[in-house]
Every structure is written in structure tokens, then in C-alpha cells.
């Protein structure tokens, strides 16, 4: 029997059908497990609704993709080993892994890492860079998803080859933080929300290669070479978008995919809940 959306402890519906006897593992028990691993914050009401389903799908996603878990507030590496279907149903294998996580006191977390510009020869933080991440992030550090960290390594290498300085304006962006005091509505989806994008200027001597420089086609030849190198390495440059965005580079995750939804939830939670963030040396 698989617990699924529509199941309801109060109405005695489990596995999509009415039953006389309650199963050993009820919807409320499932919600309780999901709550304990940091994926469900709604009420423990025994009703398998969309929030329970989403939390369960994120758990199944974690089983396949998680890089870290927290154990007693300490970050630990996680090696996904189970190829569970991402279906939002709680069958025997998902339940078994839920119990494993519960017994090991694992709590889900994102894959954000701290990168220090002190360790990067050709990358600096712009004077306009807004530091986020609270006390866990030191001065001179910025946050990026671990899955996107190779992009920073490539940027530094290409900038070094071309004698450019990459001046970072923004990397991770907090979803919803702009609403307070905002004058315009924030974006609904962006690679910045999952830590997969960087906005920057490629400074070439005295030339900042600004958006206006690209519009007027007065950017330097090395700025163009840098973009070409990034493209060839598989990254997207915002200048290629239909709505051009020259400062933007990203290591894209399809914003319509569940991978994106799971990463938004986990990486934004990592910041809002003050979860630990590993410092990662970038090669």
C-alpha cells in the first residue's frame, strides 16, 4: 500500500481506497517524519494534500541528489545511493529511507557553499555587492550552489588567462526579501534563487565593460573572449538571452523542472533557517 495524495486518516482513506483498519504507517505519521527532517511545516492533520506531496517529493529528490545533510546541527556529506522514483507517493522503499533518515537524525539542507574571493586571483566582490547569509558568511565570501561552483573556477581561470578581473555584483538572491520596501514586484523564478547565477562586470584595465558598453558595442576584445570561453565551457551568458542581460552568467537548471523547485526550497531554507554552509575551495 502506498500513501498518496487524497489519503486521509480522518476519513479512513489510505492507498487511494477506503479501509476498515488503519495501516501501521498513517498520513499523520508520514507528516511527522517529513516534519522531523525539515521538509514539512504545515499542520499534522492526517490529510495528504499538496504540501505533504511536495514535501515527500523533495525527500525523494534528496535521496537522489542531496549533497549534504545536517546531523545535530552539523553539516555532513551525503552520498545518495537510492534511486527512488520521484512520484510523491510513500511506498515501502521511500518509507524505509524515511525511517533511516529519522533514526540517523538527518535533517535536509541545501547545497550552498561559501566561496572566498581571497582564494581567487581574478575575482573580487563589487563595492555594490550585498552580503547575505548572516553570520555564517565571512567578509569577502559569497554564496553559490555547490553544483554551480565549477562555474566560478572557470571564471577565475578564464579571467586570469585574459588578465581581467571579474567583479561580482550578486550571486545568490533571497526569494521574497525584496518585497519589504519593494517598489516593483520581484521575479518569480531566477537562477539566482538557487545559487546558480552570478552577475558581474569583467573589468579590463580601466574599462568596466558595463551593460551600456555592450549596448554601444564598446566592450573590450578580452570581454568578448571571456564570454566565448564561458559559452564553450557550457555556461549561459545573459547577453545571448532574448531580453539581454550582459552581467549575467549561469549554470542553468530548467526553471520549469522539479529539480529547480526542490533547490529553491532547500537552498532558500538553508539561509532562512540559518543552516550551516560549508566553505568550499574552488579549483
Amino acid at each position: 500500500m502506498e500513501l498518496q495524495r487524497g489519503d486521509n486518516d480522518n476519513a479512513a482513506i489510505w492507498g487511494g481506497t477506503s479501509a476498515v483498519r488503519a495501516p501501521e504507517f498513517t498520513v499523520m505519521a508520514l507528516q511527522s517524519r517529513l516534519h522531523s527532517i525539515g521538509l514539512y511545516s504545515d499542520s499534522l492533520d492526517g490529510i495528504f494534500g499538496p504540501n505533504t506531496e511536495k514535501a515527500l517529493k523533495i525527500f525523494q529528490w534528496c535521496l537522489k541528489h542531496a549533497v549534504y545533510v545536517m546531523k545535530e546541527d552539523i553539516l555532513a556529506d551525503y552520498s545518495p545511493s537510492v534511486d527512488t522514483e520521484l512520484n510523491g507517493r510513500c511506498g515501502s522503499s521511500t518509507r524505509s529511507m524515511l525511517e533511516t533518515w529519522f533514526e540517523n537524525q538527518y535533517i535536509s539542507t541545501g547545497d550552498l557553499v561559501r566561496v572566498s574571493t581571497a582564494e581567487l586571483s581574478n575575482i573580487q566582490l563589487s563595492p555594490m555587492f550585498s552580503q547575505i547569509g548572516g553570520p555564517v558568511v565571512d567578509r569577502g565570501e559569497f554564496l553559490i550552489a555547490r553544483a554551480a561552483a565549477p562555474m566560478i573556477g572557470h571564471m577565475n581561470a578564464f579571467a586570469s588567462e585574459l588578465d581581467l578581473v571579474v567583479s561580482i555584483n550578486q550571486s545568490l538572491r533571497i526569494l521574497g526579501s525584496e518585497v519589504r520596501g519593494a517598489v516593483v514586484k520581484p521575479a518569480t523564478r531566477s537562477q539566482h534563487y538557487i545559487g546558480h547565477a552570478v552577475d558581474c562586470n569583467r573589468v579590463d584595465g580601466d574599462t568596466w565593460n558595463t551593460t551600456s558598453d555592450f549596448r554601444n558595442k564598446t566592450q573590450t576584445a578580452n570581454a568578448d573572449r571571456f564570454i566565448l570561453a564561458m559559452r564553450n565551457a557550457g555556461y549561459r551568458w545573459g547577453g545571448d538571452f532574448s531580453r539581454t542581460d550582459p552581467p549575467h552568467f549561469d549554470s542553468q537548471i530548467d526553471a520549469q523542472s522539479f529539480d529547480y523547485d526542490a533547490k529553491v526550497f532547500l537552498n532558500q531554507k538553508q539561509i532562512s533557517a540559518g543552516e550551516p554552509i560549508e566553505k568550499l575551495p574552488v579549483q
Partner: protein
Amino acid sequence: MKNYLFNRRFFSGVACLLLLTRAYAADPGPGTADLLTKIKSDLAHGQAVIVYRMQNKNRRSEQYADWAAGLNQFYATHRGHYRVYAANQAFNSELTKSKIKLKNSYTVFMKRGSPSYYYEGVILEKAVYTAVDNHYSGKPVSTLDRAFLPEVISFKLD
């Protein structure tokens, strides 16, 4: 119990809507008839004014994301000194009268006693706002500011 939950959810929803409405209250939206009057009043009271025209309304695009984040972050830390408005037809007409070529997206900065600036296109670097602000607040204009300062225009509303 169900009624109580429904009411609680409903009123939470209404409260969220009210908060959002309040959050965006600085933006009167296109079509506001008295925008010019408001701007003139703000300028007379020593406020700096930013008027933007943003063609791209797609909130799923990275360009929109970077533009909105930059403007909101700047406004969040300078709200006491700046008023921000979306351009309307009347404002566009004033720009046209001053022989300024209208673009689908632009930003105009104004402050009494200071030059007005016109940024063609979408502002994607917060350094543009900071460069203008440094100039308006009498701070020395740095090399960095010079790289990002928009074009000075002979356009006055005060």
C-alpha cells in the same frame, strides 16, 4: 471548526494582499493622471525622483529578475531620499517635448539643483543607481561611478 479555519485562511490571505499592496505603494503604475504633479511636488520638497519605463513584464526572465532586484535593493536603503514611479503617457510626452528619444525601457533620474540623467535600456547594475546617488548627495564621483553614470539630459520638471 471548518468555518474557523476558512476564516483564518481567508483573513490571512487578505492580510497578505494588503501587505503586498502596501509594499508596492511607491509605484503608482502607468496611467496615473497626476504623475507630473507628484513629481514636481517631490522635487520641490528636495526629493530625488526615479522614473522608469520597463517593457519587459516577464517576471520569469533573468533580465526582469536582475532589474527588479537592483531597483528594490537600492530603494530599500534610500527610500527616505528617493521617490520611484513608473512612467506614464504624460511623462513620456514631456520627455519627447525635450527632444529625448523615447526607448521601450529607460530610467530618468531627477533632483532639484542637480543634472537629470537618462539611462537607455534596462538598468542591470546597482552601480548605476549608486553612481547617480553619489553625485546627488555631493560625494566625490569615483572612477567606478564614472563608468556607470548615465547620460546627462537637459530635462527639468521643477
